[in-house]
């Protein structure tokens, strides 16, 4: 490979201070994400996925190791990255439009252009007609869409998404997945996408990274060699199901691997799964 990676994570380790002392959240995490690559991260709850994503955004001070985006070491948020928060952290005192405009307001440019951009994005995520609503007047799914639109509005090179579709019903989720793939390929973005849904990871990503339980370490990096453009029918093909199964195996191996230190159950777990 000659092109440098868009995101490069080296020996990353993160310790958090808590009331009860220090907590090792991430340990020895290293991986690269290529330009225009779509990487999904899966792992058990509390393993440090959000922490990792926030670290890439520069929101959390690092402990040791290094994260570089576009060749520059990350030490604070920057306009090259956009973050979709896990909780749809919308500003309750701002309307849908003003929430989408939030990131644009920190930049130069005239207000009319910013409003137009925000309006276009509201339409893109299917919220036209709701621009003047306040968050409390929206359903959970609509709030999530504002959340996504807000990150897209600043047109970042790297999109960091923390379970953005988690509170959506299956139907809306699929529509937004398709939209996301379209935006990703049309606007040539790099995406790092955290999810709990294995099939979502496999459907969207070029590669799925499996993190272990806390402290989070990279357990596996599984390339998804399914053809693009991907359609929803893909989800019912045997190839797709085989890949989902493969990811499941990695996750369970990783769980039973821990248990095996106490009792030698590794074989049994594999057999049970099969």
């Amino acid at each position, binding site marked *: 490979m000659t092109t440098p990676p868009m995101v490069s994570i080296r020996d990353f380790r993160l310790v958090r201070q808590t009331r009860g002392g220090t907590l090792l959240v991430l340990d020895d995490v290293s991986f690269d994400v290529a330009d225009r690559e779509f990487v999904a991260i899966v792992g058990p709850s509390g393993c440090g996925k959000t922490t990792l994503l*926030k670290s890439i*955004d520069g*929101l959390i001070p690092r402990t040791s190791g290094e994260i570089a985006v576009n060749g520059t070491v990350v030490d604070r*948020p*920057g*306009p090259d*990255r*956009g*973050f979709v*928060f896990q*909780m749809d*952290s919308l*500003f*309750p*005192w*701002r309307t849908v439009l003003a929430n989408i405009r*939030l*990131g644009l*307001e*920190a930049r130069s440019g005239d207000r009319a252009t910013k409003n137009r951009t925000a309006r276009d994005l509201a*339409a893109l*995520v*299917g*919220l*036209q*007609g*709701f621009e003047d609503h*306040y968050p*409390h007047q*929206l*359903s*959970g*799914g*609509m709030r999530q*869409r504002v959340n996504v639109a807000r990150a897209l509005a*600043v047109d970042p090179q790297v999109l960091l998404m923390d379970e953005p579709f988690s509170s*959506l*019903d299956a*139907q*809306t989720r699929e*529509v*937004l997945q398709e*939209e996301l793939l379209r935006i990703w390929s049309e606007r040539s973005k790099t995406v790092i996408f955290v999810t709990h849904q294995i099939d979502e990871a496999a459907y969207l990503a070029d590669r799925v990274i499996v993190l272990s339980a806390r402290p989070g370490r990279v357990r596996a990096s599984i390339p998804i060699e399914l053809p693009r453009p991907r359609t929803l029918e893909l989800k019912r093909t045997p190839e797709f199901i085989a890949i989902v199964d493969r990811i499941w195996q990695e996750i369970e191996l990783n769980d039973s691997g821990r248990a095996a230190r106490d009792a030698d159950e590794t074989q049994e777990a594999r057999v049970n799964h099969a």
Partner: protein
Amino acid sequence: MTDARTDVASPRLAGGRGEPSPPVRARKPWWHRIGLTTSRRRALISLLIGVAIWEFVARVLVDGSLFFVPLTDVVRAGYDLTLTGELQHHAWVSFQEFFYGLLLAVLVGVPLGMAVGISTRVRDYVQPWISGFYSTPLIALAPLFILWLGIGIVSKVAVVFAMALFPITINTTAGIKNTDQDLIDVARAFGYSRTDIFRKVLLPSALSFIVTGFRLAVGRGIVAVVVAEFFGSRGGLGYLILVSSQSFAMDRLLLAVLLLAFTGVIGIGLVGRLERRLAPWREDMTV
């Protein structure tokens, strides 16, 4: 509510739908059109019942105007005192004391509360004083203020200020502290400067707490005016209460009390209006 799923329908479906259709408007009775909403009508009925009970108790149950008088007597006293100009004078004196004291408390209390909320250093230095003063019955210091500043308006303004300052400061601090960390992170992720985070996140988020501080301050301010005037004054509604009680003029005493209550209601109503103006995104809650 309708099925929640209609809200999260796919964008394709939502696309053509646009604005949700306005609610069907029911015909409203005539008294709505003159501003008498359902809740105002209920308030009015409740007040009228109160007035009737007052009139009944004063005319039938209590005899002797030494201790209690009917509302109609109070109204007449109000009419007489207005004709002589005394009532306007007392009301104006009290209003000034109240207004300037409260204004000063807002001007000092809001920035102070913000500083305490934002800076750990300021908090460490200032917090012990705030806690100390807030738990002191400052009204008990009113005689001291009068000794120091005389029986004119200045001493009353000082007492009102002292009483109103702490609820405003404490609530402002609480508002800043209550800001959702996620919202601050969103602003940081977008590269907002510290000033912008303050202006666009902390301030709007703290607003409802600050307004609650104002509301408490209005109540305490009225108490402060009256009590301070008791301890030494030449005018004001508190002064009117004091001299009326000494001469057993129940009608005038009750008149002053009613006016004070009225001021409180108006003041709190104005704060509520301010709140709706500043925070239109808030809605009445349903329990």
